[in-house]
């Protein structure tokens, strides 16, 4: 069993879980309307730390993102017995954009920018963690992904304790991107409401400390189960039927578990599409009579933090025997038959489901409970490597065979795609990192997944620099004072997990799709993550491996297809 032994929330509403919960329970909101927030023209409603607080909380030698993570983790460690210096303790960060606010349009303009995995390791070193840091970047479901990875590493006995921090900060980078996507509400967001106009962006770091225990005898909260998947619909729009969220919830729901549920804490971003999709999923999962709540109108959408901060707030409220209302909601504006919680409601139940969905067409659902029934640790079948591919600027080798190609560098990746795939995908709209991962994985998957159900196929990629080229390109579209034209297509490519969605859509992959960012290529860590993921999720096929890219002529992909022996 995975027990939550300590938590922290560091947000504009407070620097501890207690402060944040008290503020939310009083109905307070971090949201404020600002003109020209962070230099981005326009009027925005955002959940931001005021400038003076940002200055006061920023730690010398650390970026704003790193500072928030450090503060959250330092606070949580101050009240647990978990020792970061033990090699049996792992530190995992979940984030969508990490410290991208320090990145420049060209390297000369970089501030304190570090690749996400490198930044996580820097924070881990400052906190005295002995084991190598891990970072997952799965857009808005990064919080769920990080917690699931932690649970697997603990259940399998690789580590005894895990410190899991979900964090994202507000930046011109993210604000400009979401403005280009026309997804921002100019007023405080209204999840599931008839008059919802879109989301508000927030910033937050939220941390849970997890330990493995033999039974659920101890007081406190447990992560009972979770499921991540892909809806294989579109990289930036959720499947209208809610199929991904539905399957994730169905996978973790038994009749006994349903009977113990106090509420569903929904993703509830207050965009037209997300809330509608979630309502269909919740209804279809048979949870139409369970109160649904959402907290985006308190914190804004805090991306990588959202899955953790919203779970912590729900635990606090159920500790007090109440379900807090979905702030901002007044009249149901979705077609799924669900029960929105519109006023503080008493309950004696002590379990809840947290749902999440994100760019890259990924979804997740997690079950938390105070007095769970014991479950058996998973043990999966044996896997073997069925195919491999390696792509460098000068060659592409598939199953030991050198593929005849004439070009080199970035052009080689395009040639590879044109010659062997040409599958009508969005390939030419992708950045080089995505093109590389797409072409390599597409070739591996071609003709190899026949007869395997889409739900039984999963993706697990590792990278160091991820989408850094797309990140710089995005910055270049709005860094000149009189030329503010951020491109939605370029911005979408700045989410490094989006290529997993592209692959999922074309190859119909509906299992788990995850991107892990490491401080450097590290075969041992990759193998550990692959093994615990296979044991816990038992897909029929997994496409996995390393993809990295720093410029047009410096890149490499080494991917494998693993199938059940």
């Amino acid at each position, binding site marked *: 069993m995975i027990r939550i032994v300590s938590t922290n929330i560091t947000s504009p509403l407070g620097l501890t879980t207690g402060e944040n919960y008290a503020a939310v329970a009083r109905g307070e909101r971090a949201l404020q309307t600002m003109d020209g927030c962070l230099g981005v023209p326009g009027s925005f409603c955002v959940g931001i730390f005021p400038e003076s607080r940002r200055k006061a909380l920023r730690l010398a030698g650390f970026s704003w993102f790193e500072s928030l993570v450090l503060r959250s983790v330092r606070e949580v460690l101050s009240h647990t017995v978990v020792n970061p210096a033990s090699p049996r303790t792992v530190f995992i960060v979940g984030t969508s954009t990490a410290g991208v606010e320090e990145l420049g349009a060209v390297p000369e303009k970089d501030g304190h920018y570090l690749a996400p995995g490198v930044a996580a390791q820097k924070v881990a070193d400052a906190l005295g963690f002995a084991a190598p840091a891990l970072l997952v970047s799965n857009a808005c479901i990064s919080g769920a992904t990080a917690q699931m990875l932690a649970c697997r590493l603990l259940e399998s006995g690789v580590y005894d304790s895990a410190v899991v921090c979900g964090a994202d900060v507000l930046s011109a980078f993210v604000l400009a991107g979401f403005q*280009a996507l026309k997804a921002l509400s100019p007023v405080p967001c209204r999840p599931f409401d008839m008059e919802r106009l879109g989301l508000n962006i927030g910033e937050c770091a939220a941390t849970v400390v997890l330990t493995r225990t033999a039974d659920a005898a101890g007081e406190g909260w447990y992560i009972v189960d979770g499921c991540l998947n892909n809806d294989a619909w579109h990289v930036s729009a959720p499947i209208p039927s809610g199929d991904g969220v539905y399957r994730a919830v169905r996978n973790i729901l038994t009749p006994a578990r349903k009977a113990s549920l106090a509420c569903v804490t929904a993703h509830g971003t207050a965009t037209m599409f997300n809330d509608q999709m979630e309502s269909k999923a919740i209804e279809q999962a048979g949870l139409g009579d369970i109160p649904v709540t959402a907290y985006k109108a308190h914190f804004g959408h805090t991306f990588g933090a959202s899955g953790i901060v919203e779970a912590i707030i729900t635990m606090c409220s159920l500790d007090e025997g109440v379900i807090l209302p979905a702030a901002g909601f007044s009249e149901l504006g979705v077609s799924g038959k669900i029960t929105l919680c519109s006023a503080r409601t008493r309950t004696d139940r002590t379990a809840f489901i947290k749902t999440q969905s994100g760019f890259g067409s990924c979804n997740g659902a997690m079950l938390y409970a105070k007095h769970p029934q014991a479950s058996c640790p998973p043990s999966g079948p044996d896997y073997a490597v069925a195919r491999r591919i390696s792509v460098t600027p000068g060659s592409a080798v598939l199953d030991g065979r050198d593929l005849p190609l004439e070009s080199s560098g970035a052009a080689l990746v395009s040639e590879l795609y044109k010659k062997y795939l040409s599958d009508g995908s969005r390939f*030419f709209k992708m950045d080089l990192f995505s093109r590389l991962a797409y072409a390599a994985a597409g070739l591996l998957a071609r003709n190899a997944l026949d007869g395997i159900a889409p739900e039984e196929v999963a993706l697990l990629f590792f990278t160091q620099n991820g989408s850094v080229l797309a990140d710089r390109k995005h910055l270049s579209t709005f860094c000149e004072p009189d030329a503010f034209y951020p*491109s939605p*297509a370029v911005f979408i490519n700045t989410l490094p997990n989006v290529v997993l969605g592209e692959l999922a859509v074309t190859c119909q992959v509906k299992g788990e799709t995850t991107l892990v960012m490491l401080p450097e290529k590290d075969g041992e860590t990759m193998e550990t993550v692959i093994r615990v993921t296979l044991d816990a999720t038992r897909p029929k096929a997994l496409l996995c491996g390393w993809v990295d890219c720093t410029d047009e002529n410096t890149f490499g992909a080494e991917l494998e297809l693993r199938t059940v022996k």
Partner: protein
Amino acid sequence: MEELIKTLKEQIIEALNLEDMTPEQIGNDDPLFGEGLGLDSIDALELIVILDKHYGIKLNSPAEGKTVFKSINSIADYIRQHRTK
């Protein structure tokens, strides 16, 4: 008008990364979404950026662009009537 249509097609091909496509291959009345060019929701947002960047026209949402973005001709008509640069 001919000049505007040619420029517009070039801008669309570049911004939407329509690989290996030339302005001549896009018919002035071809539907841009669904059948025809097969553009998607992100492309619609990209068209909004083109109108803003090159013609000084601000659309607030893809919904506003729905009738405008039917074809090259409909976009060109809209540009002629509303351009500010």
